[in-house]
């Protein structure tokens, strides 16, 4: 068995090839720890049983992992002369059908992920065969596109427990070459010329390190492989060892030979039992084959490798601590110098390289440094394996050339965030790394570029985060990790991290001050600059980068006591309350309905939200996305319950009495006067609370009635104006005065308002329709959406044709389309992206389609065609295809040459709205470049004292509940400024409700509001959706899980 010369080497290779490409089918199951965790063991057993039962001649083997974790378990099937087909998400129950297929010389196409016709093993080349035109090649699968497998060259294709298969793909041929050439200096020169840098994270040149060791004179030298992979979320090294242990040994033996060292040690985590087992097996086999031990390959070189299992201390990944650990001492780092190359293990010269560094040696030896530097960036050649995990569709091990932009990892390979969410940040380098914000995803992933952003590449962890991740909590999590893994030797790391953790905990609990934030920043810098070893020096990186790139999140926690992601539980009542822009106490009104206390429920709702019936109809209901009930079946229908509450009080005989009770909550008059410009949702919300506080409130509006967009943009069939009138009546009863037909800038100036009132709140909506500049917009029959909707709402007769094209995908587009349908037109909506990218409420889009609107996706207007009279006769649209991901995390539509013509006589443009900012010019208000008014993010104060602004004016076009949220917040800060007292908490009455978590929440499915059948509603402006019936609302309330209760049992 011992290989002593070329012919025996080749014989072993041939035997291996016969196993890889046998004369009968070969089936391999990916059985790394990841595959096994996903049930690969059962799959393997099922195949084994099937083959035994049928007496089928097949080569069944266990392999490592091919890297596509999200699609595990992976099974490779190969029929002689055909490509290897990789099957994904294979279950044990699939085995019988797969074996049936194999028996008939077929592959199961429905399970096929991709095929491999030939594989470049770098050190060898295997041609499997060709065929299966319907199955994509592996390189065409988005997850693999752009990947270059140098380190992972054998992973998932060979049996790691069989040295002959490793030999077949060229493992140990580099060793053979090095031993035959017998020129160690040339090898070191080649490694230096390849500019291979340490893959453990520090990025020091491997060739130079080897040269130090080679030159060191000592009776003994050691080389060590650092396989103490401890970063949370990183598992590259584990997979490499599990899938291909022999390439690691080969790298180390070559290293030993060229540096004049006879003993190698692999320091591997004890938590990786499979890696330890396979590596142990590989060492035994290599020794048996004469590739390790005495007189390797008959060339007189002796080299031994032993395994040491680390006890799992993170700090033992630091080289000096690792050496102490090997010596049997406590794993605490020591200062360098002396460097391990001078005095390492037991005082002898020692070289330590990361697992992945060793895997790069054989390819460089075989292919040469010039080949190696072709890949990657000039300063950092080659590839790096990353574990891409977190909020991406396709998770797994990704080997990419260094210098690849980060966005390629997240969007192309990872496929973006699942469920249409938006990726917010990527954390690279584990606890030592930092968070890179989405705006900076163009950064090249290499040592220097990431360092510039305050992060590190580290060993290759890449955790993708979306808007559900709180960046303060992320920083806190990593500091908690390093804090508990600190060895305790030096003060900055031991005591500094402890203090940093305290401060971060205070931030997440809403107990920190801005002063502490400054101290935290100072402390983090000190820990970074003063710590003894790499652990402490890099531990503050997560804090420093999040403070640098996500400062607003820290400020939200400190100034507004809010965690937008809803992660920090102390800062929110419940997930629904946290997601509501008005922060309505949702569990409270649900409980009141459940307890059949409808009048109190109304009180609770209306004091949280002065327009409960309107928002109950038109809100975007962000609460649905956060409801924990969705984890069981569907979210609680909170929006329709508060619509029900409001609807059952308005217009009932109880109204008068309840209205009086609501108004009774008003505080005594303060004598302060507040002017509000704009009677839309923002202005009304602010007015309501200012009036509740006891201030005198006057609203100015250019229209003849209150409601703003609610009255003039949202069509009658969504929000009946009679309902809106009830709500405005209650606001009037609270003491709010209205001045209509009065436009600020014309009838009254801002300066007059400033002189007459103690505070002025500007809440003007986005009434200016954006215009698209394309040929034909001057034609008769092209109308902007908002004036169209406004005209209909005011009862004007509009020159609407019979065939209407609506351009856009927002709520205004859908409203226009459904209104046009009701006016008897035939409607087509043209949207440039896909359905899931539409900003409109999904239910609205579906309703529009049910009513007969056609939607053309992936099309953008090219030109509008007119007839001889100057009227619209058709619209030409260009098909779009989806390109790269843009800053919004959606794929950018790219216009193609494919033009389609749609006949129409009216075109409604609904491509977005803007604020008409003219009134604010020369008023002393600072206006941002975006055309929005600059305000303090928390107090909403403008640059002019006593002037506040909110709603669309500062955020751009948004939705009703967001707008009202601003109004509510402005009232709070206006009152604070006017009275100097924090009165918000005392404003609202307490409600006594049950504080027990329901033992058996209702098992009923979600109750949906009933839609009037499409055929009935599509020609009428009467309300299209009928609210919940009392019994439904009650049952819906019983579905709530009461996340607001703490420490309940």
């Amino acid at each position, binding site marked *: 068995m011992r290989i002593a010369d070329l012919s025996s080497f080749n014989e072993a290779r041939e035997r291996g090839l016969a196993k890889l490409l046998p004369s009968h089918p070969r089936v391999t199951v990916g059985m790394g720890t990841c595959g096994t965790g996903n049930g690969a063991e059962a799959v393997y057993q099922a195949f084994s049983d099937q083959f035994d039962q049928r007496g089928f001649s097949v080569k069944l083997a266990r392999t490592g992992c091919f890297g596509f974790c999200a699609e595990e378990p992976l099974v490779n099937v190969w029929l002689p002369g055909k490509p290897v087909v990789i099957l994904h998400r294979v279950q044990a129950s699939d085995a019988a059908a797969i074996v049936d297929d194999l028996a008939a010389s077929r592959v199961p196409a429905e399970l096929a992920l991709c095929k491999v016709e030939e594989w470049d093993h770098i050190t060898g080349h295997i041609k499997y065969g060709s065929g299966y035109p319907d199955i994509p090649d592996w390189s065409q699968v988005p997850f693999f596109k752009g990947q270059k497998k140098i380190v992972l060259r054998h992973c998932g294709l060979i049996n790691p427990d069989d040295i002959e298969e490793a030999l077949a793909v060229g493992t140990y041929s580099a060793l053979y070459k090095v031993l035959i050439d017998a020129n160690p200096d040339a090898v070191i020169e080649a490694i230096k010329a390849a500019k291979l840098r340490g893959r453990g994270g520090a990025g020091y040149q491997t060739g130079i390190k080897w040269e130090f060791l080679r030159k060191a004179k000592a009776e003994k030298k050691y080389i060590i492989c650092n396989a103490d992979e401890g970063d949370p979320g990183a598992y590259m090294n584990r997979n490499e060892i599990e899938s291909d242990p022999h390439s690691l040994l080969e790298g180390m033996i070559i290293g030993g030979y060229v540096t004049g060292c006879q003993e190698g040690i692999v320091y591997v985590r004890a938590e990786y039992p499979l890696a330890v087992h396979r590596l142990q097996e590989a060492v035994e086999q290599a020794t048996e084959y004469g590739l390790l031990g005495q007189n390797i390959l008959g060339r007189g070189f002796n080299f031994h490798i032993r395994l040491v299992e680390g006890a799992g201390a993170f700090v033992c990944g630091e080289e000096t601590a690792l050496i102490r650990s090997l010596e049997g001492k406590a794993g605490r780092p020591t200062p360098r110098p002396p460097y391990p190359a001078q005095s390492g293990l037991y005082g002898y010269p020692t070289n330590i390289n990361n697992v992945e560094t060793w895997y790069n040696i054989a390819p460089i030896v075989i292919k040469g440094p010039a080949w190696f530097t072709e890949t990657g960036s000039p300063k950092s050649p080659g590839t790096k394996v990353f574990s891409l995990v977190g909020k991406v569709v396709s998770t797994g091990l990704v080997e990419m050339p260094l210098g690849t932009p980060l966005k390629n990892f997240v969007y192309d390979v990872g496929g973006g965030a699942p469920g249409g969410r938006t990726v917010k940040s990527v954390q690279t380098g584990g606890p030592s790394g930092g968070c890179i914000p989405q705006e900076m995803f163009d950064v090249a992933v290499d040592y220097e570029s990431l360092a510039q952003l305050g992060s590190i590449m580290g060993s290759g962890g890449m955790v993708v985060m979306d808007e559900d991740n709180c960046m303060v909590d992320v920083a806190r999590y990593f500091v908690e990790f390093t804090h508990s893994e600190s060895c305790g030797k030096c003060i900055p790391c031991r005591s500094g991290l402890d203090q940093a953790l305290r401060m971060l905990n205070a931030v997440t609990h809403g107990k920190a001050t801005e002063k502490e934030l400054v101290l935290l920043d100072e402390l983090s810098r000190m820990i970074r600059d003063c710590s*003894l070893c790499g652990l402490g020096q890099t531990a503050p990186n997560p804090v420093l980068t999040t403070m640098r790139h996500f400062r607003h999140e820290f400020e939200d926690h400190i100034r507004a006591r809010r965690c937008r992601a809803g992660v920090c539980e102390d800062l929110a009542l419940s997930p629904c309350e946290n997601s509501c822009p008005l922060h309505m106490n949702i569990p409270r009104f649900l409980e009141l309905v459940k307890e059949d206390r409808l009048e109190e429920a109304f009180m609770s709702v209306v004091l949280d939200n002065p327009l409960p019936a309107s928002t109950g109809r038109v809100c975007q209901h962000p609460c649905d996305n956060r409801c924990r009930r969705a984890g069981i079946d569907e979210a609680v229908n909170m929006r329709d319950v508060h619509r029900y509450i409001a609807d059952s009080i308005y217009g009932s005989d109880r109204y008068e009495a309840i209205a009086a009770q609501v108004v009774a909550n008003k505080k005594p008059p303060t004598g302060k006067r507040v002017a509000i410009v704009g009677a839309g949702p923002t202005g009304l919300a602010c007015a309501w609370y200012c009036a509740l506080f006891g201030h005198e409130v006057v609203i100015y509006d250019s229209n003849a009635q209150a409601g703003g967009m609610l009255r003039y943009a949202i069509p009658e069939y969504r929000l009946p104006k009679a309902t809106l009138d009830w709500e405005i009546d209650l606001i009037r009863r609270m003491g709010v005065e209205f001045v209509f037909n009065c436009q600020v800038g014309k009838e009254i100036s801002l300066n007059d308002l400033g002189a007459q009132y103690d505070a002025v709140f500007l809440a003007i909506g986005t009434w200016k329709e954006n215009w698209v500049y394309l040929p034909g917009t001057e034609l008769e029959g092209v109308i902007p959406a908002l004036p169209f909707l406004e005209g209909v709402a005011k009862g004007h007769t509009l020159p609407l044709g019979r065939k209407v094209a609506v351009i856009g995908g927002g709520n205004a587009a859908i409203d226009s389309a459904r209104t046009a349908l009701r006016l008897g037109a035939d409607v087509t909506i043209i949207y440039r992206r896909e359905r899931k990218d539409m900003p409109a409420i999904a239910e609205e889009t579906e309703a529009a389609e049910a009513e007969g609107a056609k939607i053309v996706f992936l099309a953008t207007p090219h030109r509008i065609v007119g007839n001889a009279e100057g009227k619209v006769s058709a619209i030409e649209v260009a098909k779009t295809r989806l390109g790269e991901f843009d800053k919004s995390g959606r794929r950018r539509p790219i216009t193609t040459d494919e033009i389609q013509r749609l006949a129409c006589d009216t075109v409604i443009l609904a491509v977005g709205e803007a604020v008409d900012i003219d009134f604010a010019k020369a008023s002393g208000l600072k206006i941002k470049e975006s055309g929005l008014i600059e305000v303090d993010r928390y107090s909403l104060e403008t640059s002019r004292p006593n002037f506040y602004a909110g709603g669309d004016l500062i955020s751009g076009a948004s939705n009703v509940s967001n707008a009202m949220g601003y109004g509510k917040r402005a009232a709070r800060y206006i009152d604070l400024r006017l009275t100097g007292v924090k009165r918000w908490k005392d404003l609202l009455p307490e409600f006594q409700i049950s504080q027990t978590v329901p033992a058996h929440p209702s098992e009923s499915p979600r109750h949906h509001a009933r839609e009037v059948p499409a055929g009935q509603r599509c020609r009428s402006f009467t309300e299209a959706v009928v609210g919940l019936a009392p019994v439904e609302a009650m049952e819906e309330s019983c579905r709530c899980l009461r996340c607001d209760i703490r420490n309940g049992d």
Partner: protein
Amino acid sequence: MPSKISIRIDGELVHARLGQTILEVAAENNKPIPSLCSMKGLRPVGACRLCLVQVEGLGRMLPACTTPVQDGMSVTTDNAKLRGYRQMIIELLLAERNHVCAVCVANGHCELQTAAAKLGVMNTRYAYRYPNHKVDLSHSRFTLDHNRCILCSRCVRACAEVEGAHVWEIGGRGIGSLLVCELNRTWGESKHCTACGKCVQSCPTGALAEKGFAVEEMTKKPEPVSRIAAFREVRP
């Protein structure tokens, strides 16, 4: 390479011998650099980070106690940044355990107290941790009060390197690190302690003290320990 070299310390040209550390050369030339964990005769560990200095041409700061001098080196031992960091280190130390000078046996003779005074640290901006540590009075002659320990490990090294008894070690990790006697015995139960008192004399604070002394009465004399250590070094 010449055994005599010259380096600059805070701009001043001074002579040094190869193999000396920056801390030693600075002390010889009357430019003391604050430090707590280093003690003459004991192997430096670079744990307290008070002696960090800036070396021209290097981005990061280096501990003076473990960095050997090199010919032509230019060292800055004091500037606003270094002072700021040193103050923070003292603040962190003061917040870490229960350092109550007024009732301390070493009050007035404490290196931590002296360093704080020299660096102008009057209070700490960090939250006191108030850990609940015990006092070990089991030894017939000495006391160990963890509340005053700064984990400098001078006792550990004095016992191991000079006395050769290996009584002390630092156990636990991170903020939970604690000085332990042998395999977590009380000092009185120690099998190897020779009661020589070298650890007590090496301790920079009142953590290790001799029985029979009241507040302010315990002065430490580390010099004899250093002298014995020097004899050990010349032996073959």
